[in-house]
């Protein structure tokens, strides 16, 4: 095949792009700076080290030199190539030691291009190869020119597909041979670049809308984490600082009346709220900047991110659970989010899930159609047994009653004040529980398990039946009399659980088993 000859570029061991030295250098400096920034700031602010600046500069220059040598050696000793004979990707690395790593192409799970800010400045990108297995799951070639990275990505994926079909050919199953031909065609196709079916780009305006309608609690959480980290780093500086003490005294003297304290509290609440929105927007933009989806014949390419630009190439086989989420506000603006749980190299679900935000419903359905092997069908949903709702209401009532009871003995608040707060809170909790109950639904259709949940942030999860690995049925002792069970569906990328189902529903599981056991589709 002439195509292959031309692609054997990667057969000889080779270095990264020369700019890789610069990249490793800058990246190491960045890491060192991040580690030492607290010390620098602290000493600069307290002026404790100002007498030693000569030594500091000397030390820093030595550090620079060491990092430079390290970067050069790290670049020089890093070599990679593809062993076409044995279908392996071979990598040599190490600064003083020498480390050889080789991965069977078959075990490669995912190959994607990543670009951090430093990458963008220098004009290179890195290629990440994830493989299945216990050790050395992820390798990163830190600096390649974009063309080369894409070529290598294509080459690795094509070879993987090719080997897959070669292996399959050994079997003489008639049914499989048809799909073999398909697979082979696909492998051939992926070598040619011009098979783009459609692309979808996310503009800044939509991104802003998305940030505005997203979950502000995340923003709030980020602020709290930020404040506590900064406070932890600078607490000593704060203790020593006369200005801070002055501010504390000022606060203690000036704000004494209840009205003023309330005003400050309300004001700071609003400021915090506004900040949360701002942080949410910024986070959204950082994460999803320049989102671009390219649909090719056999794969879906997703690229996004400002700080770290990552490009994924998605194969439907790797997607195990598909979640469609939105809230009423976003729904009105036609913003829908798709979250995909992927098989990855380790157990962490977070890392191996990919969120594609701000899709129009139309595009979302298009992507879903591509990911599912059969058309999505409607099913009949079941709810949790009403005992769940009853239990929740009892617990809420007990908690509220307990608060009144406690207050009766301790006497912190007057009973009217407590009642005027707790009774509305209780009512809100009651209605919330009711809505949670109403929105939680499960269906087992001929080809899917579908779960709906969420009051404001509505979610719908889909698992194709043949991707289920196993299921568990739990019967806690206190539900045994009522004949209620919890069911968990296990997939290779996480579990899906539904509680408080009548035991008679287990008959559906027999159907599920029948489907899994009679399925000849490869689940990955």
């Amino acid at each position: 095949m002439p195509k292959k000859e031309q692609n054997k570029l990667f057969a000889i061991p080779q270095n990264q792009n020369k700019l890789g030295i610069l990249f490793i250098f800058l990246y190491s400096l960045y890491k060192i700076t991040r580690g030492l920034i607290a010390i620098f700031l602290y000493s600069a602010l307290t002026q404790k080290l100002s007498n030693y600046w000569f030594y500091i500069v000397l030390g820093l220059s030595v550090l620079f030199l060491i990092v430079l040598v390290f970067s050069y050696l790290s670049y020089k000793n890093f070599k990679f190539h593809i062993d076409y004979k044995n279908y392996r990707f071979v990598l040599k690395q190490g600064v003083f030691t020498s480390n050889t790593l080789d991965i069977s192409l078959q075990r490669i799970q995912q190959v994607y291009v990543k670009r951090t800010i430093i990458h963008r400045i220098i004009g290179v990108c890195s290629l990440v190869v994830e493989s299945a297995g216990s050790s050395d799951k992820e390798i990163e070639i830190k600096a390649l020119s974009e063309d080369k990275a894409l070529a290598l990505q294509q080459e690795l994926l094509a070879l993987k597909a090719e080997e897959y079909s070669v292996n399959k050919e050994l079997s003489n199953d008639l049914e499989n041979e048809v799909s073999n031909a398909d697979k082979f065609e696909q492998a051939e196709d992926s070598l040619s670049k011009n098979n783009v079916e459609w692309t979808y780009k996310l503009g800044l305006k939509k991104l802003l809308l998305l940030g505005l309608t997203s979950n502000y609690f995340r923003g709030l959480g980020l602020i709290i984490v930020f404040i506590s980290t900064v406070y932890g780093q600078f607490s000593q500086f704060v203790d020593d600082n006369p200005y801070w003490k002055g501010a504390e005294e000022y606060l203690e003297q000036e704000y004494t009346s209840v009205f003023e304290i309330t005003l400050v509290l309300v004001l700071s609440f609003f400021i915090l709220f506004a900040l949360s929105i701002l942080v949410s927007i910024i986070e959204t933009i950082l994460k999803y900047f320049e989102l671009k989806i390219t649909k090719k014949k056999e794969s879906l390419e997703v690229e996004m991110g400002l700080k770290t630009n990552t490009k994924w190439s998605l194969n439907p086989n790797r997607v195990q659970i598909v979640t469609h989420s939105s809230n009423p506000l976003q729904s009105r603006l036609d913003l829908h989010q798709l979250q995909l749980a992927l098989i990855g190299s380790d157990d962490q679900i977070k890392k191996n899930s990919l969120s594609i935000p701000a899709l129009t419903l139309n595009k979302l359905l298009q992507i879903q159609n591509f990911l599912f092997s059969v058309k999505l069908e409607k099913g009949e949903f079941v709810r949790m047994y009403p005992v769940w709702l009853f239990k929740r209401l009892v617990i809420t009532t007990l908690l509220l009653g307990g608060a009144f009871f406690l207050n009766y003995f301790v006497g912190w608040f007057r009973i009217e004040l407590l009642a005027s707060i707790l009774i509305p809170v209780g009512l809100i909790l009651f209605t919330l529980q009711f809505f949670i109950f109403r929105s939680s639904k499960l269906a087992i259709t001929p080809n899917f398990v579908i779960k709906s949940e969420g009051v404001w942030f509505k979610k719908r999860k889909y698992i194709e039946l043949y991707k289920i690995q196993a299921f568990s049925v739990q019967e806690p002792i206190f539900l045994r009399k009522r004949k209620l069970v919890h069911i968990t569906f296990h997939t290779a990328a996480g579990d899906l659980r539904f509680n408080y189902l009548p035991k008679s529903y287990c008959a559906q599981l027999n159907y599920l088993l029948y489907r899994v056991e009679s399925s000849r589709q490869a689940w990955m």
Partner: protein
Amino acid sequence: MKDFVNNSIDLNDLPDFESVHLEISEKNYFIKMVMQWAIFCLVYSLILLALMNAKWGIPIWIFKLSSFFAFSFVLIGVFLSFKRYKSIGYALRQKDVIFQRGWLIKKTTVIPFNRIQHVASKQSFLDKKLGLAVLRIYTAGGSGSDISIVGLLPKEALKIKEFIIQLIDAEERTE
């Protein structure tokens, strides 16, 4: 969901995984759990004794309370072990393996053979002494769906392991 209709298949015709007769575990498994409790309680009492002799001025009522706890631990431990031993059951069908365990929370897991990644039979020190083995079945679903069939005879464990491995191999060959 009772009125769920499915044109191709009648749910009642499908084999029901809940009505399968489950094999129970070996009696020695109960003894093993009791021995584990005994070892735990022994270590606990030894620590108590050591502390009592250390003369750190720990008031005597703390020791009284702790001894009481130790005693109730023994009772609770034996009771729970018995309940757990009674709750364990497994069954092999033509196409899947069923494993049930737990008394407070009874959990039944079903793994189809064509989703098993690999099988291992294990023996701890106590297992060897008591003539027991554990069969661990791994799936791609991770710790959530992996099962350890406890309280087997080593011979049985080996037999089941061989049976499953041979099935997996056959599966792979036809694929």
